[in-house]
């Protein structure tokens, strides 16, 4: 295992770059209002979201939040966990070919969710996803990454892809927060428009610094999320 959660040499670097202050834009305010008035009441009263390990979110910044993926609710519920004034520091990494498929969808996802669109196909030096993510972290953003790369079906977690590991290899020392999301895929599965209010849960793990060879990082990320799946 390459997890070095308790290694003091790494804990120092965990607080790197925190304290960066991003300017408040109109977009940020729109997002804050959207979350305060719609998303949070929706999560509390309709979904009845339960959160375990919420304290892990405020320990360090920036971070990379890694989670399993089965629903559009995943991103929304993860974003709903942050204090409203920290919301603009968190960007979900999202597939450009899907979330930028039309002007309208793109405007919506960029404005309300502050997505970091990345290319899945026809990658050029300009749109290189790694570079985009690296730049975002250097600018002071934290990222939400779903390493499965797409929404899974039937409640089983898919294999993790190497993108997030690649990023961690380039930026060692950025802490990872693992998360496991329960029942989101039941509430709003792929291909459905209207959610069914199953109770959903977010389980967050302690932030950790993960290093090593790329394949080791992939494995560590996957087992960190799987570990949270097992607890009950």
């Amino acid at each position, binding site marked *: 295992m390459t997890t070095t959660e308790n290694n003091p040499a790494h804990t120092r670097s965990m607080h790197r770059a925190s304290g960066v202050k991003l300017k408040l834009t109109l977009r940020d305010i729109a997002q804050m209002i959207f979350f305060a008035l719609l998303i949070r009441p929706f999560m509390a009263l309709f979904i*009845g979201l*339960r959160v375990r390990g919420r304290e892990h979110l405020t320990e360090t910044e920036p971070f990379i939040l890694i989670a399993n993926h089965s629903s559009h609710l995943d991103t929304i519920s993860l974003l709903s966990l942050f204090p409203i004034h920290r919301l603009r520091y968190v960007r979900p990494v999202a597939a450009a070919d899907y979330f930028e498929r039309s002007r309208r969808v793109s405007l919506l996802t960029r404005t309300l969710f502050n997505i970091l669109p990345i290319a899945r196909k026809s990658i050029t030096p300009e749109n290189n996803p790694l570079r985009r993510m690296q730049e975002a972290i250097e600018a002071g953003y934290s990222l939400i990454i779903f390493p499965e790369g797409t929404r899974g*079906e*039937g409640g089983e977690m898919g294999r993790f892809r190497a993108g997030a590991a690649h990023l961690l290899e380039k930026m060692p020392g950025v802490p990872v927060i693992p998360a496991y999301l329960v*029942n989101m895929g*039941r509430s709003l*599965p792929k291909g*459905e428009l*209207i959610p*069914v*209010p*199953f*109770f959903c849960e977010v389980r967050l793990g302690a932030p950790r610094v993960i290093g090593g060879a790329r394949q080791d990082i992939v494995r560590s990320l996957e087992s960190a999320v799987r570990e949270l799946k097992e607890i009950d």
Partner: protein
Amino acid sequence: MNMLAALKSISPVWRMGLLVLSVLVIATIAVAVIRRAKPQKDFSELAARVRAWWVMAVVFFGAIAVSDLFSLIFFAFLSFWAMKEYITLLETRPADHKALVLTFLAIPVQYFWIALPGRGPWYGMFIIFIPVFMFLILPVRLMLSKETVGFVRSASQIQWGLMAFVFGLSHLAFLLTVPSIPGTNATGRTLVLFLVFVVEMSDVLQYIWGKTLGRHKIIPAISPNKTWEGFLGGIASATLLSLAIRFLTPFSILETIIVSLMITVAGFGGGAVMSAVKRDFGVKDFGSVIPGHGGMLDRVDSLCYAAPIFFHYVRYFHSWD
């Protein structure tokens, strides 16, 4: 004597509020005394339960005192939350999704019939919407998803939940909006207070009798904590207590006793049925929204059974139409 006269002059709803307040104060003091008497034993769950009762009593009185519309929204939300707890524990199939959306849409619709003016014509709709229309529509929606494996199970378990938690509980809301029972002081509001107080007190008293004197298990395969002593002691003492709040009802003394026995036994049936459901799901509680009690369903389980029984008793024998 003056105090008693003053008490008689305030409205039945407020008189009931004072009564509940004194019950809660007594319960709180009792728990504090027990804790001091036996400091070595852990009574934190008991204390949490009593605290939760304070919150529930305040919320409930608030919900039924503000306005009819507010009460309806409150009861609709109870049904919604209960249904959420139920379906989360169900084994659902991906093919059930659209039928489940319909199921949840049925909740506001069922309460909408109650909100409509002119109760007479809409009572019919209220009483057949779920048992007839939803019963026919849901399987059609399930059939359209073209998945036959587990079809009957899905259709049955969804309809069962709708009947118990939406249809059953909505009787409380309908009863609440009944203006007045001819020739008495009783209104829908006072009847709901009577029903909820007797059924919930019966739950609490069954628990207390069972904990203190319980020896003989009544349904060990379903709920090992339920005893004959708890059952009999609970319904007897709740029935006795109901005589103290007869001012909320149009009933004579004998009738109050009969009605209270009926609803406490029905409430026990509801609680036991929900225990069987929990057994089937392999869980102890339906959720964790109410500290010390579990989920919303763990609190309203007896009412799901008692409410329709009480409602139809009153409607038949003290018809308001």
